[in-house]
Structures are given as structure tokens and as C-alpha cells.
């Protein structure tokens, strides 16, 4: 009886000491730099700084551009996994912020918009980081324009991902026929939800409180 009690207590103690899995967050911000949307790039700085202010130690963040071919690491402007120690994490945040400011100042417009490629790259990055919460933020008008030869008709595996479209601006053609804008958003929602992800749209960048 005593031995059984001791074993139970030991098991309880070991159980209580067991890790309960990661508690961190991974954020991947895709910034559309194509055509006229390049004018909106400055808003990427606001979103990046907001995301940085919300992140804690052991969280990961990356900012990448959406251009002609986005399924590549070369499009990642800055990436960081914040250190365990709060002081080092603060230093990393400051360095990250300065990199983003530099990118915003030097951004050049891209001829095409490969959103799906960027999404695939984001999924790959966040899966590699193995964060418990995975957020993909897309700062774009969500109009995909692929260059010739790029195949993007690929099903997305977005289980456990939150995909947030930010500042989805209306195009000139949308003003003539709003159904184009709505159908564009519907297509992306369907695509994300079909992949197992959760889709959201936030157009008011002054109210990002619920973002992270």
C-alpha cells in the first residue's frame, strides 16, 4: 500500500514537472510591393512595430516581400527569434525595427504579385520555428498576378494558422464593380479555410488591438 502511494506521488510530481509544450508565437508579415500597392509599404513599418511590441521572449517574427516570385528566402527582409533573456530580446527588437525602417525607405515596386508563393514560404518558416501560435499577416490588395511560368495552383496546408489580410485596398476596377473586391476576398477565404486555416480581414490599421 505504502509503495503504491509513493509511486503515485512520484508520478504526480513528474507529471507536474513535465513541459506542457511551447507557449510562443510566430508572426510572418508579407508585404506586397507590387505596382501601386508599393505606396502602402510604409504601413508595413507600423504593423511590424506593433507586432514587435506584442511579442515576448522565444517568439519568432519575419517580414518578407511579395513580388514576382515570393517562394524564396531571399524575399525575407528580416527575421528573428527573440532571446530568452528580456534585455537581449529588447536589443533584438530595436535592431529589427531599424532594419524594417531601412527597408521601407528603400523599397522598389515589383511587376507581379505572387501571394501564394509568399504564403507557402510563410508556412514553411513558421512550421520550422514550431511555434504554438502561428500568424501570417498579409499587407496586400490580395490581387494575385503571376508571371508566366509560375505554377501556384497548389493546395495550402494551413492547419493551426491564422491568416490575416491587412489593409486590403480597393482597386480602380473594384469601384466600378464591387463584386470583384468581394469575390477576391471570398476566393482567399475559401482557399485558406480549405487548407484548414482561420481567415480574417482587418482594414482599419488604427485598431490592431485584437491582432496578436
Amino acid at each position: 500500500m505504502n509503495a503504491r502511494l509513493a509511486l503515485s506521488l512520484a508520478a504526480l510530481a513528474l507529471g507536474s514537472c513535465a513541459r506542457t509544450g511551447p507557449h510562443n508565437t510566430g508572426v510572418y508579415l508579407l508585404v506586397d510591393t507590387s505596382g501601386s500597392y508599393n505606396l502602402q509599404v510604409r504601413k508595413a513599418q507600423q504593423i511590424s512595430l506593433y507586432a514587435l511590441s506584442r511579442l515576448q521572449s522565444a517568439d519568432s517574427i519575419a517580414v518578407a516581400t511579395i513580388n514576382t516570385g515570393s517562394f524564396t528566402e531571399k524575399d525575407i527582409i528580416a527575421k528573428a527569434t527573440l532571446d530568452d533573456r528580456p534585455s537581449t530580446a529588447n536589443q533584438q527588437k530595436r535592431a529589427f525595427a531599424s532594419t524594417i525602417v531601412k527597408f521601407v525607405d528603400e523599397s522598389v515596386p515589383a511587376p507581379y504579385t505572387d501571394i501564394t508563393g509568399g504564403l507557402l514560404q510563410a508556412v514553411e518558416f513558421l512550421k520550422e520555428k514550431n511555434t504554438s501560435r502561428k500568424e501570417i499577416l498579409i499587407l496586400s490588395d490580395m490581387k494575385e498576378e503571376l508571371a508566366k511560368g509560375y505554377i501556384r495552383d497548389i493546395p495550402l496546408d494551413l492547419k493551426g494558422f491564422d491568416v490575416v489580410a491587412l489593409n486590403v485596398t480597393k482597386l480602380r476596377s473594384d469601384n466600378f464593380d464591387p463584386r470583384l473586391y468581394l469575390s477576391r476576398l471570398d476566393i482567399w477565404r475559401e482557399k485558406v479555410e480549405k487548407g484548414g486555416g482561420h481567415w480574417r480581414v482587418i482594414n482599419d490599421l488604427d485598431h490592431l488591438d485584437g491582432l496578436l
Partner: protein
Amino acid sequence: MSMSSLLTITPWPIVSAATLLVLLVAALYFARDTARQVIHAAAGALAQGLRVASHAVTRAQERLAARNRAVLLAAGREAKERIVEREFVRVGDTVRKDLAGYPDMRRRLSESIQRIEEDQEKAVEVPPEAPGWAQAIKVIAEVKGRSTNTEILEDIHRSTVKAHEEAMADYRKASGERHALLRRMMPDWRLIQETLERVNKSVESVLARALAIDHHMEEYEAIVRGEDRAVSVLSSSSIVYFFVSALVLAVATAGTAVNFTLIARPMAEMVGGTNFIGAFRTADIAALVIIMVEISMGLFLMESLRITRLFPVIGALSDKMRVRMIFMTFAVLLMMASIEAGLAYMREVLLQDELATSSLLRGDNGAVIVNPHLWITTAAQMGMGFVLPFALVFVAIPLETFVHSLRTVVGLVGIAVLQSLALILRLLGNGCRHLGTLAQRLYDLPLFVPLWIESRRMAHEAVARSRLAVAATPWKEAQS
């Protein structure tokens, strides 16, 4: 079989229902005795069981009360022994201190008295010389020859005046010397007075202690005899100690929380801010461990100083070992306090760093307004970080009181709970018996018709029997 099918045993439902009712009442009537016995037996068994349970609980409560009484008396006896022992130590110290100075005091008193005696002998007043001229002057005055006598008398007068003046001068001188001697006695008198006052104070102190010891001994004897009054006093004291110590421990817990807040954030710099043990951050656990170690060191320090007696092993150590332990625990505490002060400083630095980063991320370009009086907060945090570990040392005293009084209070609560339980069980037992009676009455309720018939029949039979008895009486009388 459903109710509707039952109602179809005859073509008329009402007749079916009436038939069923009659059958049911008849069945209940014929099973009445058995049913009453069953109800009676069930209610009786339940009541008996509850009564037995109540008695068992009462016995357990009595045992617990006896145990609690024994614990209270033992604790009270121990406490009184400690108090009396301490009083005896104080008396011993007083007596030892006074007796150690007694030979010196006696010597000084003797010297003072000797000096006073010598001075007193010297200060004895010398009576003025008796006038030897008066008789001679009278004789000469009666001698014949006026002129010779006058000259002689004048010479005598001059001599007398001169002698008087000399005598007065000598007298004044002697008086002065005597006064000087008396003045010289004053310090000796004061010394004697002070010494006697000191002795008086010591004697009064010893007497007061003796009275206190008498009082404590009376209480101790009452405890040893196990008097109810002593138990009552000890019980109420124990409850008071329990609440007071609980209050102080609550204050100490608040202090611990403040201490934890001071060091939890900077601990993340040492052990990382993202590691978890179970559901808790390792940094938080590390901070808590530091505080617990400080409290443990405080307990050991208090034990080593023999202020508390939670660990008999420490109390039984040799004095040399105890002193070593005092220094060791104090050194560890000092180290911990210094670490905490450093961590408190680090907390402020981290806070400023975070503020600067947040400001930058908000787009303020790092323009943080630096408060010129910020050093006050930093110094206060460091001071608290250094002082709190030492303040927590004193937690040992209320903790000991709490632990000791908890045993008694838990016993008292247990007694109250058992008493209530016994009462409830007794009430339930009685309730079961009455419920049995009520169930029998309720059983009889639908049988009122056959019961009424039965009672009428019995009454009729009784009347018939009495008539038979009356009719048989003259026959018997005739026979007799």
C-alpha cells in the same frame, strides 16, 4: 400492463376502475399486518443504526476532547516550565551580580563606617575652660587698700579679656575643624546611602521575581492537576494565539509577495523567461525558491538563537556548534539580501530598457522622459530587497505559535464538528422512528373503509360478548 389496458377488464371503464380499487384496497388490507411490521422494522433498524452511529461519533468526540485536553495541558506545562525557568535564570543573574559585588560593597561600607567613627571621635566638642579667675578676683576685691586693688583688678581684667579672646579664637578654630570633619563625612554617608539603595533595589527585584514565580507556579500546579479552569484558560489563549499569529503570517505573506515581485522579473535574465516547469515559469519558481531559502535560513537562525523551538536537533546542539550555525545562517542571509538588492536594481534597469524599447516601437524615436528623481525609486527598491529577507527572519516566531496553536484549534474544531454530527445523527434517528409511524398511518389512509368496518365489527362483537357475560352471570350465581 398499462393503465388503459387495466381499465378494459370490463366494458365499462368506471366499473373497471372501481373493481381495481376494491381489489387494491382488499390486497392492502390483507397485507396490512405484514406491511406494518415491515415499516416498523425498517424504521426501527434505521433509527437504531443512526443511534449507534451517533454514540460512536460521541465516543470519538470524547476521545478527541480528552486528547485535546492532554495536548493543551502538555503545551501549557511546557510553556509554564519555560517561563519559570526564565524567571529563575533572571533571579539567578540578579543574585549572582549582587553577590559578586558583595565583598567589595562590604569592604567599602566598613571603610566608610570606620572613617565616620574616626571623624566623629575627632569632632567631639571640647568644653570651654572653667573660669579660674572669679574666686581670686572676689578675694582681692575684699582686700583693704583701694588703689593697689584697682590696678590689680585692671590687670586681671585685661588678662581675662585677653584670655577670653584667645579662648574664643581657639573655640572657633576647633568648631571649624569639627565642621570640616563633618563635611568630610558627607561622601561616606552618600556612599552608604547609595549602596543601601542599590541593595534595596536588588532585594525588591528579587521579591518581585519571587512573586511572579509564585504566580506562575500556582498556574503550573493547576495545569499539573489538570483543573478545568486551567484547561479553559489554555484553550482560549490558544485560540487568541492562533488568530494573532495567522494575522502576522498574512502580513508576512504580503511581504513575501512584494519580495517576489521585486526579484521575479530580473530572475528571467538569469534562468530565461520562457522556460516552464509544469504550468509555472522557471524564473518565477527560482524567485520563489530564493525567498523560501531566505525564510528557511531565518528559521534556522531563530532556532540557533533559541528564540524558537521548532527543531529539537538544533536546540540540542552544543553552544559552540550553535554559534557557528548562527554565523553561517547570518552569512547566507546577508548574501541573499545582497543578491536581492542587486536584482532589485536590475529590475529597474530592465524596466527602463523595456520602456525605451516600447517607446521606440510606438514611433517616439526613443524619446523617453527620464525622471530626475528616479534614483529614489531605485534606492527604495534596493533597500526593500536588502531589508525584506531580514524582516522575513522574524516569521519564525509567529510560525511557531501558529503551528502549536493550530493543533489545539484543529482539535477544538474537530470536537465541534463531531458534536454537531452526533446531534444530527440522533435527530435523524428520532426522525426515522417518527417517519415509520407516519408511514403506517399513511398506509392505513386508503383502507379507511375496511378498517371502519373492522372496528364496527369488533365493537359489535365486544357488545355481544358483554351481553353473553351478563346473561351468564345469574346462571353462575344460581349454580353457586
